């Protein structure tokens, strides 16, 4: 590895930062879900970086698990979005009350 692992981890942190801003500041649920995917990817980058730094496969296994969870989350989140906003001309998470307990 020519580049120090700190650079990779800093890149991961910056991507996480951008994703957090997206989740907090946007109100379109699709873009919020995409920002959550950015968060998953940032975590994966850190995991793979540490796996390479310590030459340990466990990080890869964790990243594999995270990809699976991301796929499940995207499927369920998009299903909820599709059901909730099927008839709405505009999409706004602030106006959703159907999932209130």
């Amino acid at each position, binding site marked *: 590895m020519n580049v120090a692992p700190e650079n990779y981890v800093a890149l991961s*942190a910056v991507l996480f930062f951008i994703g957090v801003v997206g989740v907090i500041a946007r*109100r379109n649920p699709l873009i919020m879900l995409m920002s959550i995917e950015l968060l998953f990817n940032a975590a994966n980058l850190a995991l793979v970086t540490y796996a*390479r730094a310590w030459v340990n*496969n466990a990080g890869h296994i964790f990243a594999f698990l995270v990809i699976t969870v991301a*796929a499940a989350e995207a499927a369920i989140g*998009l299903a909820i979005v*599709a059901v909730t906003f*099927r008839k709405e001309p505009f999409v706004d998470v602030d106006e959703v009350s159907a999932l209130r307990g």
Partner: protein
Amino acid sequence: MIAFWILALLMIASAVFTVTARRPVHSVVGLLVNFIALAATYLTLQAEFLAVMQIVVYSGAILILFVFVIALLSSGVRPFDVGPDRMPRILVPAVVFAVLTLAGITVTALHTPVTVLQTTPTNGTTGDAGAFGSVANFGVALFADNLLAFEVTAFILMVAVIGVVLIAGDEGPGGVVRRRPKRVIKREPILKARPPSPELVEGSG
């Protein structure tokens, strides 16, 4: 060395574009660039299998799911777009919170003694069969050492499939609300015209 910085700039730019784009389709394109750049970054970290899986699962499956949902929702009368965003109002607290997160992660990362270990040699170079991060290496780690993680993966996917069918299927909340009144209206005249006989009621149910 140069590849990392190019990929890093590409990933940050595409992530910013994803978050700030007005239309979700543009966000999907930005996210696609981000995922491919991340896959290339995985290659520089000798994670070949994860790089391939990143492209197949994320770019091939999850993004297509996003595109499908966008197409499904935008098939209405008006073009699919959002109302006023919270971006201007909440941008300052969001940036403050996110900078704190960034600082926390960075401080934690810089205090981790990784630098000592970064010159650790790996068994073989990228591309060799059985090298670190190759398919064979990953397969042994997944199926021999971490079999439980693999089974948990299968369980997670099964729960996700059941959840999606329950939420978005025909018998879901939307389907029931839409279809129940129709059936009641259709059956009421029949039941009124014919006095209830046990066989008919059972057979029609």
